[in-house]
């Protein structure tokens, strides 16, 4: 078998699956809590408008959750089939963390989702509120375990060798490894922003399509206010996460900032076209001493460049660009949310062009999340588990032909699913909460 070909196909397939999958949890983790808020508003007020709101967003949630579940089942198989070397080398760490996710989160959210969706008339009100809460708790617990594992792959800690096997020495250190608190916070806030822009965007769409609608005005305001609060918090959390990365994964920072050579007084590259072949930046626009100042809070400070990590350095161009997409989207989302909160103050209805803007921002969170995910995962290359396992050593087993055939099947299935999802979402939002 051609290993290089199998490696590319295995990565393409896994990247496609996980990239598709991440869209839905990144929405449902926070949407679960927003739903709980709607549900409690209804429980306390008895206002049918809140009930209608809750039911509409329950449908959006159910749809997104189903997309996440089915693509997640695929992932649980691909860990083993696409990366057999991964389980061989670090299975004693990764396995239990995944098992805990299934045990503590998946059953909880799936079971209570049934009660939440179909049980409103069958259980007392408080049991239904409790079920909604359990769904939200379940999605968050799920994020906890998967990010513990993902963070451990970036910044491994707490493991020891037993013969040739890597095992956990101290589970608490494995779970709460150095990058975990930052990554977990960053992801939860990303989910909050993704969900609040989906809520605001679809509500704006509803107002554009059907005119006045009290429920859509409520949810537009809810989404915008939530986004306006979370966006600055996210910028702060992202900055702290970056400093944590500088400490534990300096190679990733070198790629993000396109720093090729180790040196003092390193400029901040605002824009450039990094050339991975020649190891230099073309068309660079730089702020002198900027990178040293931002990352070390000292304009003269030394920063490590790509040259310090070769041959174990990440490709610079994709990481560099993805990072700028993420930050750019973040800034745009902040501006949109703040101007939106201003435009909806004291129950005002925004101008039509603003509603169009919010509609356009519906999936802004997805773009930022995917870009951020590319930054962190490509920035870790060539390592799968930093310092322990290289990606190319984890691939194997399945032939290129089988990977190619199944990849084609997945691409077709995912395309159909995504189109259907977007059509149904637009349709649901257009019909509004009363339908």
């Amino acid at each position: 078998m051609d290993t290089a070909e199998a490696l590319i196909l295995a990565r393409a397939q896994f990247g496609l699956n996980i990239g598709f999958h991440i869209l839905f949890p990144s929405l449902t983790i926070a949407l679960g809590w927003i739903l709980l808020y709607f549900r409690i508003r209804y429980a306390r007020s008895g206002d049918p408008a809140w009930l209608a709101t809750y039911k509409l967003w329950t449908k959006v949630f159910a749809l997104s959750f189903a997309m996440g579940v089915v693509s997640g089942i695929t992932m649980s198989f691909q860990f083993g089939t696409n990366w057999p070397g991964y389980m061989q080398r670090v299975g004693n760490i990764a396995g239990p963390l995944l098992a805990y996710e299934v045990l503590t989160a998946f059953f909880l959210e799936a079971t209570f989702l049934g009660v939440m969706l179909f049980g409103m008339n069958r259980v007392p009100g408080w049991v239904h509120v409790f079920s909604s809460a359990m769904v939200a708790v379940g999605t968050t617990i799920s994020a906890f375990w998967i990010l513990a594992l993902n963070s451990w792959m970036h910044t491994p800690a707490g493991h020891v060798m037993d013969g040739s096997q890597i095992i956990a020495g101290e589970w608490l250190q494995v779970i709460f490894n150095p990058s975990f608190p930052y990554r977990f916070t960053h992801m939860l806030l990303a989910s909050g922003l993704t969900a609040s822009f989906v809520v605001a965007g679809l509500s704006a769409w509803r107002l554009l399509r059907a005119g006045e609608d009290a429920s859509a005005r409520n949810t537009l305001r809810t989404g915008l206010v939530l986004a306006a609060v979370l966006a600055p918090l996210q910028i702060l959390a992202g900055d702290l996460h970056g400093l944590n990365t500088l400490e534990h994964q300096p190679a990733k920072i070198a790629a993000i900032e396109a720093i090729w050579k180790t040196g003092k007084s390193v400029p901040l590259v605002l824009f450039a076209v990094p050339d991975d072949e020649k190891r230099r930046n073309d068309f660079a626009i730089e702020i002198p001493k900027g990178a040293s100042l931002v990352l070390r809070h000292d304009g003269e400070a030394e920063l490590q460049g790509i040259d310090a990590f070769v041959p174990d350095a990440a490709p610079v161009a994709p990481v560099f660009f993805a990072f700028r997409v993420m930050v750019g989207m973040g800034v745009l989302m902040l501006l949109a949310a703040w101007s939106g909160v201003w435009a909806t103050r004291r129950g005002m209805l925004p101008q039509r062009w603003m509603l169009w803007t919010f509609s356009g921002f519906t999936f802004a969170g997805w773009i930022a999340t995917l870009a951020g995910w590319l930054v962190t995962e490509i920035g870790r290359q060539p390592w799968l588990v930093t310092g322990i396992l290289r990606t190319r050593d984890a691939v194997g087993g399945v032939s290129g032909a089988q990977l190619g055939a199944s990849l084609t099947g997945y691409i077709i299935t995912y395309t159909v699913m995504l189109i259907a999802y977007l059509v149904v979402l637009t349709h649901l939002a257009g019909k509004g909460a009363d339908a």
Partner: protein
Amino acid sequence: MSLDLPLVFAALMGLAILMYVVLDGYDLGVGMLMPAASADEQELMVASIGPFWDANETWLVLGVGILLVAFPAAHGLVLGALYLPVAAMLVGLMLRGVAFEFRVKAEGWHRGLWNWLFWFGSFLASFAQGLMLGRYVTGFHPGFGYTLFAMLVGASLCGGYVLLGATWLILKTEGELQKKALAWARWGLLWVALGVALVSLATPLVSHTVQAKWFDFPRTLALMLLPIATVAAGWRVWAATGRLKRGEREFDWMPLAATVAIFTLAFAGLAYSLFPYVVIDRMTIREAAAHPSALKFMLVGVAIVFPFLVAYTVFAYRVFRGKARAGLYE
């Protein structure tokens, strides 16, 4: 006292797989029966599985999860050998999972399309699982005969899931639809008989180890209780559906209970054949097991979580007990 960890996890994995087969089996079966029902009946059928299918599929994640984390070496071997049927099953499960959500929101020909995809996904996933079972019990031997055998097992498992689905509908519906389900159940039962017979004959023929385990007097006499009980359970399904059809006294849960008994007995027989192998004649559970430190850590989680899991699963089934009603989101 020290626990035999690989044995404990083999038992847990077996339990998870059996739970998956029975639970997702009935909702896959209902999916496969969709084309045989009228539009109104389809709504009732979907309503009967709506609150459960998500959690049912989670048992698959748990089963595969235990295989992956407790027996990593076997996971690579088994899923590597079954790569394409696994991919087909996943595509099937994805299609039916989202079709379930989409069909409710769709109108006109869109709904027809999603209904079709719901049926197709259910069928593809069931057939692929049967194919995997057929390949697995014959030790992944290549060759036309083995492929044909696996395809027969695939068809039989579809029949088995139809039986589960139909008996589930007997419990959850009434009137005309229940009558139809009684007829569907009997068709499914014939396929189950074929599947159980096929696997029971094939495993001892393929493996001398299995043969030696079953044909070893006087143990054989005690072991014969298993097939006898299976036949008795099959007869119970046939008789109960007959009584319900004629409107005589019978519990509406009896066909489902007897069907679950068939699946449990067949599963027990298979487990007895295989043990202590996780891949027949090639790899035992001990050879495949993960490091004891990983298994111990997981066992703590299982011990803490399992009672809660059972409790809220029972809670959910109690909430939705009784006959299914249309109007899913009301």
